[in-house]
């Protein structure tokens, strides 16, 4: 099973793509996904993360089929 990964705004441009996939394994966390998809880049301090479209903090473990999104601070409205 895969973890679906999405990037938005400046992060999307820096990653050079809007979506990616990561193979699921037990104990996989958000930062593991970032490491794999970014090729080892450090996580930006201001990076925001959503799992299954909910904001998350820290470095939670993922479940099979989760969707993880990485994006910069929001600037709507």
């Amino acid at each position: 099973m895969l973890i679906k990964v999405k990037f938005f705004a400046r992060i999307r441009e820096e990653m050079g793509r809007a979506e990616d996939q990561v193979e699921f394994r037990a104990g996989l966390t958000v930062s593991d996904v970032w490491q794999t998809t970014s090729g080892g880049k450090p996580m930006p301090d201001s990076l925001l993360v959503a799992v299954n479209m909910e904001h998350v903090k820290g470095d939670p473990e993922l479940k099979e089929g989760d969707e993880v999104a990485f994006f910069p601070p929001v600037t709507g409205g």
Partner: protein
Amino acid sequence: MLIELRLAPFDALAEVKNYQALPANPGKIGAGCIFVGTMRDFNEGEEVRSMTLEHYPGMTEKHLEEICEQAENQWAVHDILLLHRTGDIEVGEDIVLVATWSAHRGDAIDATRFIIEDLKHRAPFWKKEAVKSGERWVDRNTAGYASS
């Protein structure tokens, strides 16, 4: 309650008027508070020509629904209308509309303020501005107030 993302320009006042044509509680509404955010021609001290607004399809809608539900739980509001632009936006166009209706003024004003503040700080939207020197991502929301 109506929450919509709009790719095309909208006229905030006309939207409120149309929506109000069928009030949820005619005669029970004593107060309406409408906030309209509009595209300025300047930001962070620089001239801005136009803007593109990116969002996270699915999560953005979900987040806006949650904000409005929270507002309904916290204040005695009868109805909420929330519209937000996406895509390419020109100077002077409306970006966001938040309107709430209630029996009393405090509920409407507080609910509208809560929704726009949460939206600004947490809803997944990202602005990219076209300025003289090219394009730039907006890194943080402007403060709520003119700097003094």
